[in-house]
């Protein structure tokens, strides 16, 4: 276990003597405990995949979705505390539609990622915050004639978000993949992974030749990686959830079609057996 910041880790508004904010690091640990989430950028689009650990056999397959469409052209996969993730997704959707209604064009993915990151970061700054203040701090522009409808007056004690998101979209500048961490940093990636199996997943992703790969091939590869990093001993059952945004899906974010998903699962299982046979 890494060091425990005795006394300096009680609040997100406190630095430790060696310059760390422990609350944010603890939030990152919450993300590390969740099922693996992977995103890759292929030459014609983005593929997102989630290892959705199933808590109980009574749960309906296909429920508790971890991948959400935030706009026609982009989707977001969430790792970490599910309720926190819901909040971020809701905010992202609202940012995207607000941009569209003001500027008349779909929000560029880069801009969307910056807004998500800015929002996540904002919620790491204050000890308490009213929701109305979030909007005035958040946007430096004055929308003279456009009003935010999301203002509620309530007192909140804030902790940082305990979830990281991978945002993938396809706009006029091509396919782009961004990852936003609980600290509020956001980077653009060719391939990204968060959650339990992220180290192994990153190693596998680095082996792939992403610039030559189409999304169809990418779906198979992502499935293989997720099946590969799944720890059979620790977690029994998982459901594979995948989505894509590519030329084949008409640049719209949607679930991977069922037959392709089945094909990917079969290929992944076959690859696993090969590895086990060695």
């Amino acid at each position: 276990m890494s060091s425990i910041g005795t006394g300096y880790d009680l609040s997100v508004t406190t630095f430790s003597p060696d310059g760390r904010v422990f609350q944010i690091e603890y939030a990152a640990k919450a993300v590390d405990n969740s099922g693996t989430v992977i995103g890759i950028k292929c030459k014609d689009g983005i593929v997102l995949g989630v290892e959705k650990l199933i808590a109980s056999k009574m749960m309906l397959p296909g429920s508790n979705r971890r991948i959400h469409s935030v706009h026609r052209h982009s989707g977001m996969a969430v790792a970490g505390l599910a309720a926190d993730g819901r909040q971020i997704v809701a905010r992202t959707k609202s940012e995207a539609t607000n941009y569209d209604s003001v500027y008349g064009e779909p929000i560029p993915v880069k801009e969307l990622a910056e807004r998500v990151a800015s929002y996540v970061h904002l919620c790491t700054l204050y000890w308490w915050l009213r929701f109305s203040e979030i909007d005035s701090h958040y946007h430096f522009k004055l929308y003279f004639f456009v009003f935010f409808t999301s203002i509620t007056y309530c007192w909140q004690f804030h902790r940082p978000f305990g979830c990281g998101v991978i945002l993938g979209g396809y706009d006029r500048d091509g396919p782009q993949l961004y990852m936003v961490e609980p600290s509020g940093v956001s980077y653009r990636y060719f391939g990204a992974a968060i959650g339990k199996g992220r180290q192994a997943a990153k190693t596998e992703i680095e082996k792939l030749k992403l610039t030559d790969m189409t999304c169809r091939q990418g779906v198979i590869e992502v499935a293989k990686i997720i099946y590969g990093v799944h720890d059979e001993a620790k977690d029994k059952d998982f459901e594979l959830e995948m989505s894509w945004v590519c030329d084949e899906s008409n640049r719209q974010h949607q679930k991977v079609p069922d037959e392709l998903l089945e094909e990917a699962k079969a290929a992944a299982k076959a690859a696993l057996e090969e590895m086990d046979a060695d």
Partner: protein
Amino acid sequence: MDQKMDFNAPHSMGTTIIGVTYNGGVVLGADSRTSTGVYVANRASDKITQLTDNVYVCRSGSAADSQVVSDYVRYFLHQHTIQLGQPATVKVAANLVRLLSYNNKNFLETGLIVGGWDKYEGGQIYGVPLGGTIVQQPFAIGEMEDEILKNHCSIEHCFPGSGSSYLYGFFDQAWKEGMTKDEAEDLVKKAVSLAIARDGASGGVVRTVIINSEGVTRNFYPGDQLPLWHEELEPQNSLLDILGAPEPMNI
């Protein structure tokens, strides 16, 4: 046709502004007369104003309203460009104009034509007439009453395009897709000068702005260089100049 018009009073028209797309960009054109009733307040005004490096807007209607809308949009676009890290698209500029026009339709009276070039869609023209519609067109024309004195104003006079029906007919015949830059500019120049010949409240010089991937070119055509149309008189020197000063009488 039951307008309460005094048929003996002059029916004043308005500004002439035109935006035309061609193969590779857009050409915007305008006359230069700002009138207050029948008085020409400014005979050399510039009705084509810059919003960003690559987007310009032609203003018509109330001079004050169109200027303030342009100023706000320029301000928003500047911030948007900084935020985005790259030049704003013409569509975004036109939408910002439209938002202001629509949300303040009870207070504003201005018709605008937004035109420009961006690297995604090339040259585009968007018309934003009174009321705040936004419509993308391959070419757009607008004529409007300029500054309106309250006591002379009537709603019928403010209808944009009234009396410009022949310009629509002219464009139906003369406009074609995929013109070259020079063809487009000639078309605009000809159309504005036709409108100046017939419109009481259009006059002065013809200004054009050409926007394409290489940048922006402003051109200026003074009134005496424009062709004369049907029944227009040639400019004549005064008889005083022709006959010379009379000799003083000698007693």
